């Protein structure tokens, strides 16, 4: 049952979410925009295309992209980003963070493999961002784990806790923090603008600049998975925050999770319409907000336990 | 009876050797004669003293009021061994000096003459029971060793000799005054008419006049301390050690300092049971600690290779002073033994290196490891040994000293010594390290021959062996 739910959602939700965000953004900017299904088409198109590989690159270029993809594929099945317990359930918060790091490590390496200055700068910035964002990420995960007394993601996000652990403040702060973390980690708007071209995009797009055809498709799928997973996790946090007034039926919760993910997508579209991109040196200031939220969550959680 | 005869005849051998050396001034064999007679002395002493050491008997009485206890016996053996080795090395050393025409056969013969008499006077230091005779012997050692320092007759050598002679004579004069004080301290009821015999004084030491005894000790400390190189009386020592030819420096450092320290030990021993005993011991102890620290700091900035070893001798003298201050003869002897062995090796190696590079300045000695690897290793090992690093014998003796100071609750002493030893280690390894590396890779035909390094390497091995062979029952002999 769980496997079916997760497989289906993993195949649909991430791409729909990306399409939805693009569509919503277009609508908000008074454009027609591409279809919500456009990401599916893109992926298929890319799989059919010829791949160009730099003469300077070694085998690591493709292997890195592959590892990156595999990490996300593993995570999308094993992280409870929907209200169901996941298909493969052996991931705890640290393994989660370190799998993300693994994915990142290999994507940086494959970006650098071609010797391209673009990829290198993007890689450098990706490393910097990860260094800034990981404490916030771990804090926002540690906070609920303190509440629930477990480090396993599955147990943290299952809806069967006692009332004492249903502390709205902790969950909501953690959720907000995770959302901000997601914005940074996925290089979305205040940190980076994914829609601009080359010289202006700094992180994700510049890292995949040398990838084409199948390689690009794999990294785009990975990106979509990551987006869905992060939004899913923050939605789970927020849902736990209001768990006291929620029904306990799994399917309703699933529907609410998916609705939540898309509403975060809407929020993202709104943000990307309203905000301007931050100067690179100001990014740490922005990330500080998510760190603060995470700290709040942790302190609140410690307070609840004490 | 034969024992006494053997010992006395071992005193005659150096004398005869010296006379022979002077008679055959221009002979090439003077070195061999000198080394041979030293070796003979050593053999005679060993034959006569080894049974005694394992004996239950405490003392050998010799004619003319001379006597020899176990500590003295050990020092006699050590001194004759050191001089033997140094003279064996000097035969090789001078061979090269002659080749470079730095000296001539006649000077060398006189050198051997002086060193044999020097050995004789040092041997007398250990068998004199009479404090006056002790003083005479020590003064004789400085007069005779002046001849060794003077050897090269260069400006520097003359200067060093002058300073050595004057400062030591003045210092020793104080020791004479101290001896007189001790003599007169015995006249106040202890011994009718007074006595200068240490064994007699020791027997009545509770009855010695405390003030005079204390003054006597202080004057002797200053006097013999000058000879031993206690800070700040050490000023002659680096000059003399660095200007004398390498084997002579080895003798000065490895045996002469022991003599002076032994004299201090002898005097301090008299005070043990008297009222002023504790304060005298403390003076000695702290003098040692200050010497160790000062020597370590002196080592930090040095420019001459032999000056370096001279200061490290001062450091070791400080350690021995601490051992003397604790009244521990075994540790004093052990430290002296270890230090002497390593120092002979170091000075001989330094002599080889200085001959090779033609300079004493550390900054001009470069790339030794490439040019003469064996000497480099010897220098390094010696440097490690002299700073009390395992696995060399000095480590064990220093360790025993430190654990003794912990036992006696002088923790500050131990801490200060530790700090000083650390500084000394860093300083010495810095200087030695500079000589080992660097330099241009040039192919020079001129290297140190293996022959030159036999004695130093054997001594380094001996030092390693000493680390693993010190058993408590061996030290028990001295208690």
């Amino acid at each position, binding site marked *: 049952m769980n496997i079916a739910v997760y497989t289906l959602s993993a195949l649909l939700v991430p791409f729909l979410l990306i399409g939805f965000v693009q569509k919503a953004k277009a609508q908000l900017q008074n454009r027609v925009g591409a279809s919500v299904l456009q990401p599916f088409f893109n992926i298929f198109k890319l799989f059919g295309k010829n791949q*160009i590989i730099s003469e300077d690159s070694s085998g690591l270029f493709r292997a890195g992209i592959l590892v990156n993809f*595999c990490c996300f594929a593993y995570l999308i099945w094993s992280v409870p980003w929907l209200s169901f317990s996941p298909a493969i359930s052996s991931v705890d918060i640290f393994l989660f963070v370190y799998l993300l790091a693994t994915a990142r490590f290999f994507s940086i390496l494959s970006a650098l493999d071609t010797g391209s200055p673009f990829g290198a700068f993007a890689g450098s910035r990706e*490393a910097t961002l990860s260094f800034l964002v990981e404490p916030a990420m771990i804090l926002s995960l540690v906070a609920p784990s303190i509440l629930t007394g477990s*480090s396993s993601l599955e147990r943290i996000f299952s809806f069967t806790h006692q009332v004492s652990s249903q502390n709205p403040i902790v969950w909501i702060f953690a959720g907000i923090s995770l959302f901000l973390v997601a914005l940074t980690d996925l290089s979305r708007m205040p940190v980076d603008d994914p829609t601009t071209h080359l010289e202006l995009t700094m992180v994700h797009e510049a890292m995949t600049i040398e990838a084409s055809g199948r390689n690009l498709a794999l990294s785009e799928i990975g990106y979509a998975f990551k987006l869905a997973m992060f939004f899913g996790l923050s939605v789970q946090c927020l849902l736990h925050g209001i768990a006291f007034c929620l029904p306990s039926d799994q399917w309703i919760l699933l529907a609410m999770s998916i609705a939540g993910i898309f509403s975060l997508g809407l929020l993202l579209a709104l943000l990307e319409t309203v905000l301007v991109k931050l100067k690179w040196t100001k990014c740490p200031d922005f990330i500080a907000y998510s760190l603060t939220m995470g700290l709040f969550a942790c302190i609140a959680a410690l307070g609840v336990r004490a | 009876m034969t024992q006494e005869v053997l010992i006395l005849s071992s005193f005659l051998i150096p004398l005869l050797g010296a006379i022979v050396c002077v008679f055959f001034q221009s002979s090439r064999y003077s070195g061999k004669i000198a080394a041979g007679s030293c070796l003979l002395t050593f053999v005679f002493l060993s034959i006569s003293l080894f049974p005694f050491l394992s004996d239950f008997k405490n003392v050998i009485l010799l004619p003319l009021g001379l006597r020899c206890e176990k500590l003295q016996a050990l020092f006699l053996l050590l001194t004759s061994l050191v001089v033997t080795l140094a003279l064996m090395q000097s035969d090789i050393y001078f061979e090269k000096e002659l080749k470079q025409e730095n000296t001539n056969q006649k000077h060398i013969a006189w050198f051997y003459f002086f060193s044999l008499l020097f050995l004789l006077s040092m041997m007398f230091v250990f068998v004199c029971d009479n404090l006056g005779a002790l003083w005479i012997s020590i003064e004789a050692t400085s007069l005779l060793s002046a001849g060794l320092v003077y050897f090269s007759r260069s400006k520097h050598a003359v200067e060093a000799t002058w300073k050595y002679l004057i400062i030591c004579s003045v210092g020793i004069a104080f020791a004479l005054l101290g001896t007189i004080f001790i003599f007169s301290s015995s006249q106040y009821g202890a011994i009718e008419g007074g006595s200068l015999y240490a064994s007699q004084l020791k027997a009545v030491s509770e009855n010695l006049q405390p003030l005079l005894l204390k003054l006597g000790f202080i004057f002797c400390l200053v006097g013999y301390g000058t000879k031993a190189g206690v800070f700040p009386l050490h000023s002659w020592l680096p000059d003399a050690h660095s200007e004398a030819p390498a084997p002579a420096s080895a003798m000065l450092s490895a045996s002469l300092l022991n003599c002076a320290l032994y004299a201090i030990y002898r005097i301090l021993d008299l005070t043990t049971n008297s009222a002023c005993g504790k304060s005298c011991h403390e003076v000695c102890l702290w003098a040692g600690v200050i010497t160790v620290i000062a020597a370590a700091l002196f080592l930090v900035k040095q420019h001459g290779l032999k000056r370096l070893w001279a200061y490290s001798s001062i450091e070791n003298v400080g350690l021995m002073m601490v051992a003397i201050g604790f009244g521990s003869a075994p540790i004093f002897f052990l430290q002296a033994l270890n230090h002497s062995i390593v120092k002979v090796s170091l000075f001989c190696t330094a002599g080889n290196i200085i001959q090779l590079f033609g300079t004493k300045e550390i900054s001009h000695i470069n790339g030794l490891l490439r040019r003469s690897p064996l000497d480099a290793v010897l220098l390094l090992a010696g440097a490690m040994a002299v700073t009390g690093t*395992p696995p060399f014998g000095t480590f064990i003796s220093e360790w025993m000293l*430190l654990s003794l100071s912990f036992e006696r609750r002088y923790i500050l002493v131990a801490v200060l010594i530790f700090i000083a030893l650390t500084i000394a280690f860093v300083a010495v390894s810095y200087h030695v*390290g500079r000589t*080992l*590396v*660097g330099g241009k890779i040039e192919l020079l035909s001129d290297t140190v021959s293996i022959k030159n390094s036999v004695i130093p390497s054997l001594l380094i091995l001996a030092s390693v062996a000493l680390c693993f062979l010190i058993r408590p029952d061996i030290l028990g002999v001295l208690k």
Partner: protein
Amino acid sequence: MWCFLTSGMLFIASILGIILSISSIAAPFHYSLQFPIYLGLAPVEFESDTTSSIFSILLFGLSLAFSIFSPSYLANKNANELRLFWSGSLLFIASMAGVLFSGNAILFLICWEIMSLSSAALVASELLTKNTAKASLIYLSATRVATTLLALGFLCANNLFHSWNFSDWHLMRQEALIPALLITFGCFIKAGLWPFHLWVPYAYFAAPAPVAGLMSGVMKKIPIFLLVHLLCFREMADFWIPSFFLALGAISTLWGMIFALVQTDLKKILAYSSVENVGLIMLALGAHLVSLQLHVANLASLFLVAAIFHLFNHGVFKSLLFFASGSIYQNAHSTNLNNLGGLAKRMPGTFLLFLFGTMALCSLPPSNGFYSKWLIYEGLLQLVNSSNIAVAVCSVLLICVLIIAGALSLATMAKVVSVTFLGRTRTKLAQNATECSEFMIVGQGILACFCVLLGLFSAPICLYLVQILKLASFTPPSLFQFTIFSVFCIGIVYVSFLKQPKKSSIYSTWECGFGNLTRRMQVNPESFSQPIAALFSPLLRYRIKAEVSGKDRRHFPEKVVAESTTQSVLESKIYTPLVQAVAVLGKHINRLQAGSIHIYLFYLLITLLLLVVLELVR
């Protein structure tokens, strides 16, 4: 020829050593040498217990790889250097074994100093220049200070327990605070913990790569062995002692990684990363002490096992990386990242093995490095759940610190791998690099195998450690399922997607249509780490000196020179002045020796008068 013989002997000795250590886990031995060998105050005694056996497995395992790797590494050295190298390293390995198995303090100190001296000689053995001599000297001095503290501690302990035997010492007791502290700080220095880590980069940088591997892999662990062996502070009730461990551990974790990030030399990066790892181990030991004081036995055993396991893992992967740096140095003639690049195609074997080591260093799952870090994280998280609020807050902070350090190590290693192996070569020398010899590959391969095996069987190994150390049991998390899955997953995807060569073409890297990219246009190590380094600029004293010159220089400069420098605050503000102070003192005292005989006579007189007055007054 004899070089191969020696290494063969070492190989056999290592195998025997491994067998001996494994057998001694089951049956500990005690062996005392009798007449005539004696060390003045104590006999020569060898003794094994579980900890020393565990450590000796690491030692002999690494020496096994060392014996295979080194002969080829030394292929083009002259006889003199070979002699120095082999005598030094045999002595080094033997003395480390001696340290591990010595039964009393004196023998321990002797072996310990031989270990330091032989390794110092090895440090200087590769390039006999003033710089290596300096590195060796710094290392020697640091290690001597450590020895001094240890020796003082041993003397104190002997004074307290009236024995030199380690088995008679109970340093965990309250009354043994001073010796325990002295020994601990000695160990901190030798282990290269912040703020005593300054010797580490100097020594490892100058040492030949295989030796650096052994030093970092085993020798740095010896002080930790001593701490574990004597179990300092175990029964003490003060919280401030473990907090020392925790604080210093956390700071060195961060500090090591920050400095590793800005280095441009491969060996220095590895050196700083071992500062980080030692910090991590100390942190685990500190947490072990904390949980002992909180009386949480299973958590305490978790931390101890984590510390030991991490130490093991670090030994393996760090030696692997150092060995790899050796093969890079041998073939590309430099370990400076600015001179490397594009080696992946030239040295594929080394590259692959290096990548294994890198993954372990960055603690990426499923490597062994990840697992031990994971244990620490899990333990800290459980500490958060403990009753003490201060401990809980600290643990949260420590988790953050570890995560940050992890991210930093990721950035660092991404830089290292990419600048060394990927892209184009930066110099002509590196361009002609070829793959290293098979022996070297095998030497590294053994270690890489260990990395994988330790990662794969991490949970059973930890359970085994718990069993042989007789600790309280806990349930370690398992990576096995994940590993199998990930391997499977990658395999399937690889086979099904990427083995289709027809639709790909080779072309040059995209360059905005500007013309061909030159090798100088690639990212360089400084610029890669600049964004993070800029964040830590006060700590690093990170400065960029830029100079623009030429006519009308604002828009069309002829020459632009930019140079970034980093220097440790600690080094420039604390250690250098300290050394200067001693040097100045030495200089001043040398003035006493002014050469004038009058002054000397004056000293004589003054000393005499001083002593007389002093004694008469008393």
